[in-house]
């Protein structure tokens, strides 16, 4: 069991409003990702759920119980931090078992729980080491193990992969996804990386400046963004935004994803000059400049060759366009 309800939750630090009214339900067993640019209030919202930060107004409910005034340790949650936050003076085993020890669980039971978590994360060989003797990836696995041992109602992750190198990040991401499947637990995961959000989430919550912009499954956000912010944030490389009137379309802004632009030798709808080329092997990104629309990204499958300053002409399928009004809200 582990559902979370936020009702009109706000947070102010003095005169600055950081969270400006968030309503959200996270269902039991769901993997929910908060995503947004850095400084938008993701961590603050997560810390409010954890009880590390007071709620200025509104209600936080876990499993139907209002927990606004409940201490973090009593909320039956566990949290994994970006900086690992392992206790430097304790061994891996004691790091993992501390919460249970504080809760007065018998020793034998603690040992059983830590051993089980260690087996899940292949930490068995490291149990007697101290955090200083571990690599970054191992430390983060211990931090995840420490969360598992508690059998919390909610797992909270605050950018847990940001300090890891690229290869380790992918590996740990897969491990977290597998843990979610195995444990069937409710997880709330904060990241500024939309790739992490897309790959892990059952549901993504896009935040901007303390407000929820849109909530939905990854493909829902990709195929049906509510506004230019979400359209630009979800998907990589970023969606191109073109001037609608110049194209003779009835919208202020027209969005088209780089993968939906096609090359048309000769009679395309747009002419532009190549300004830069990125060859990634499996795909080629072509950056072109058009005087009215500015920089446009095209994503082509396979290997392609272009000369810088070469003029090319582009085409798009009208059905794959997104139309936005002056305020950036989606028209259709």
């Amino acid at each position: 069991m582990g559902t979370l309800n936020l009702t009109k939750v706000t947070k102010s630090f003095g005169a600055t409003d950081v969270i400006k009214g968030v309503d959200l339900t996270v269902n039991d067993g769901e993997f929910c990702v908060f995503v947004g640019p850095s400084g938008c209030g993701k961590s603050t919202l997560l810390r409010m759920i954890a009880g590390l930060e007071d709620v200025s107004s509104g209600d936080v409910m876990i499993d139907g119980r209002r927990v606004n005034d409940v201490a973090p340790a009593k909320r039956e949650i566990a949290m994994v931090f970006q900086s690992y936050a392992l206790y430097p003076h304790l061994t891996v085993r004691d790091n993992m078992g501390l919460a249970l020890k504080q809760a007065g669980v018998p020793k034998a039971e603690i040992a059983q729980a830590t051993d089980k978590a260690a087996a899940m994360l292949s930490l068995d060989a490291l149990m007697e080491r101290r955090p200083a003797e571990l690599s970054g990836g191992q430390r983060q696995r211990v931090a995840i193990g420490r969360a598992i041992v508690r059998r919390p109602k909610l797992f909270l992750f605050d950018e847990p992969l940001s300090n890891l190198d690229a290869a380790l990040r992918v590996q740990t991401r897969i491990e977290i996804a597998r843990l979610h499947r195995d444990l069937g637990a409710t997880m709330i995961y904060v990241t500024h990386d939309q790739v992490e959000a897309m790959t892990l989430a059952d549901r993504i919550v896009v935040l901007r400046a303390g407000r929820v912009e849109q909530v939905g499954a990854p493909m829902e956000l990709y195929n049906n963004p509510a506004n230019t912010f979400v359209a630009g944030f979800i998907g990589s490389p970023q969606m191109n935004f073109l001037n609608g009137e110049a194209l003779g379309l009835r919208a202020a802004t027209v969005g088209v994803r780089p993968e939906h632009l096609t090359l048309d030798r000769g009679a395309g709808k747009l002419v532009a000059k190549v300004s830069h080329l990125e060859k990634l092997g499996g795909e080629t990104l072509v950056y072109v400049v058009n005087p009215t629309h500015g920089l446009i990204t095209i994503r082509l499958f396979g290997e392609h060759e272009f000369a810088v300053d070469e003029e090319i002409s582009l085409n798009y399928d009208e059905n794959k366009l997104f139309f936005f009004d002056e305020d950036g809200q989606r028209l259709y």
Partner: protein
Amino acid sequence: MSQARHSTARTFGAHAILITYTVIALFPVFVTVINSFKSRKAIFADPLALPGPATFDLVGYQTVLKQGDFFQYFLNSMSVTVVSLFFVLMFGAMAAFALSEYRFRGNLLMGLYLALGIMIPIRLGTVAILQMMVASGLVNTLTALILVYTAQGLPLAVFILSEFMRNVSADLKNAGRIDGLSEYTIFFRLVLPLVRPAMATVAVFTLIPIWNDLWFPLILAPSEATKTITLGSQVFIGQFVTNWNAVLAALSLAIVPVLVLYLIFSRQLIRGITAGAVK
């Protein structure tokens, strides 16, 4: 290659400056110690000469040890310093933790108020302190000195320690809170060990002025039973005649305990000073 040579030259320069400073700083100590082993005549004849077979004389040490209560003075200085140091570190760390960790009304003002103590010398309040001690019957007790020195040491301790505590990972403290540690456990078990180098720095900067102080022992606790070593040494400095052998011997002896305390803290101190460099 040229870079390596460049840095050797720089290392050399840096060491030359440091050695010069060390010599300047240690010179008075050196002169005190060598002269404490010389006869009175030799001290005045050639103050910078090392004690030789002709000039070697332990009369200063003999006088000091015969003076009776010298061991008591040592004990007084030691207890005052150690107890004050303990209070400064404990209360200083606790106040620093509160200031750096909790948001409350008047936090900033409180911090400024405490920092003010660094700039205003406590001696300005001597008269008021004396009146207070008289009123509370603490004159001629070591308690009076301990109270004053604790007050004197706290501002700098709070200032330095709160800066260091601000740098202790917030995530670590929050992890502790989620695991159900009390704020006291977080303070004593997580935060204090991580600021140990800073504590050592504060300890050294606190203990030396306390050990060397003459002012407050003279005013608050001049009785025979409560004299500190610095005050005790003054008996040899008379209005007309000064027993230089004894003064120098007493001062040389007085260096030993601070040196021991310093060596205890110095390993930590060096780590504290280089903390920024080693991440």
